């Protein structure tokens, strides 16, 4: 499977971070590895994020765990180029994120935003945005919807779908573009067991196809099922990064051990 389909975008593409000529590199270059250096965010005297060095590269699925307010969403949003840290730099394969490169980058936000149009059109929209023509976008959207098991809902209004259907549609929309990397912010929160499994299946299939996945989860059983690497955050810092089995069998840090044991971490 080809994960790196990037279509010709207008050359007058506006870089989001104007860093000179390198920022003008377009979507034809890979975006992995994604690196963050010295990422720091402080609000009202509290360090929300303090991550010296993070690299997301290679293959597989990383699950990001940690208590509420640990800074998981904040870090993913910064790595995604959606928010700017107070200090620090984010590079996608050595170049700051720019608009045209989002065709290789996918993300499902913690509260997914669906457009006011039918489910199918939502996917078509994303495909058109990265440059597919109408026919191609429609075909791919149908396929993506079928892969998500939502064919019946093609013409249903996206904004009136159930929570689980919305999550699945948001995931299908992100997958349809076939990005190199996919960030998922709690994609299965508040879903019934069947929907959780459906989403996990889609994520696994994508991962097997070569897509790099980073997923935030609170369900440790789920983390075990889908990941080959666990990254744990606490108080804005990355406490531990380890292969899944190792993390659960022999956590190195006291915080990780406490977290696995279900003990509340006092910040």
């Amino acid at each position: 499977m080809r994960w790196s389909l990037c279509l010709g975008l207008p050359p007058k593409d506006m870089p989001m971070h104007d860093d000179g000529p390198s920022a003008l590199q377009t979507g034809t270059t890979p975006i992995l590895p994604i690196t963050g250096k010295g990422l720091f965010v402080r609000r009202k005297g509290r360090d929300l994020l303090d991550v010296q060095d993070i690299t997301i590269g290679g293959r597989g699925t990383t699950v990001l765990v940690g208590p509420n307010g640990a800074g998981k969403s904040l870090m993913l949003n910064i790595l995604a180029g959606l928010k700017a840290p107070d200090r620090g730099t984010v590079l996608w394969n050595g170049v700051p994120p720019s608009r045209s490169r989002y065709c290789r980058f996918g993300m499902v936000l913690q509260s997914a935003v669906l457009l006011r149009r039918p489910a199918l059109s939502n996917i078509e929209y994303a495909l058109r945005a990265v440059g597919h023509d109408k026919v191609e976008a429609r075909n791919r959207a149908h396929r993506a919807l079928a892969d998500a098991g939502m064919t019946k809902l093609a013409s249903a209004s996206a904004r009136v779908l159930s929570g689980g259907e919305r999550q699945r549609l948001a995931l299908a929309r992100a997958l349809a573009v076939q990005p190199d990397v996919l960030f998922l912010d709690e994609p299965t929160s508040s879903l019934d067991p069947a929907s959780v499994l459906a989403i996990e299946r889609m994520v696994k299939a994508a991962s097997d196809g070569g897509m790099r996945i980073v997923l935030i989860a609170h369900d440790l059983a789920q983390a075990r099922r889908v990941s080959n690497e666990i990254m744990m955050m606490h108080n804005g810092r990355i406490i531990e990064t380890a292969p899944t089995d190792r993390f659960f069998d022999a956590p190195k840090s006291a915080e990780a051990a406490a977290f696995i044991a279900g003990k509340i971490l006092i910040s």
Partner: protein
Amino acid sequence: MMKAAIRTSMFRSVMAVAMTLCTVALAGDRHIIVQSTTSTQNSGLYDHILPIYEAAAGVQVRVVAVGTGQAIKNARNCDGDVLLVHAKSAEEAFVGQGYGKQRFDVMYNDFVIVGPRDDPAGIRGLSEATEALKAIASLSLPFASRADDSGTHQKEMQLWRDGGVDPIADSGTWYRETGSGMGATLNIAVAMNAYAMTDRATWISFGNKAEHSVLVEGDPDLFNQYGVILVSSEKCPNTRAEAGQHFINWLLGPDGQEAIAAYSLDGMQLFFPNARPNDPS
């Protein structure tokens, strides 16, 4: 997709605007603009005579009806081809300053003083308008004035001056300056049981007379002469001088004069033609 939808709707709006502009440009070909007074318009005179002229000449006559003062100002701004108003001295000043070529008498009617049926000032049947006004002032009875620099208002001020009364000093008490057109002022007079001065044509066609009636009429001082002036094409190069002159010629000629004389309401003639086309004043 949606991009196309937005583009289409924008396109439609732009088209709508363009089409409006076009229709205006086309319709703008054969017409003249006459700056005139509310009294002539409200009386229905234009509705009677203009269709006759338009059918004969094939030129549309567009009447902007405002007070005489504003009509003259608009004409000074070159926003009209013909001026048809009733304030002789102001008209002569307009011509004197070069804004108009010549002034011609067109028609006349008269002003009347109207008031409540019980007539607390006791002016009914007086032959002199100034006496009537003095009576109203001396008893401080409500009087509604247009106070809008119209021909009617200018005439009213002249009569106050002739009677040696300065009503402006009492403005806000018995003397009410409405700052409105003739009809609006009559509405106010009726509602306040006030006296008012109006041209007869407006009064006859006025639909809200209630208990009010004409109390003073027939004084030669109440004579109301209408004049017509072609706006000077030297001051205003964009005027449609030829078409404007054609309309004026028609008004002053036998056909126009006949049309004016033929207009009546409730069996009463509203305007009396008195043009002397060869004798500008």
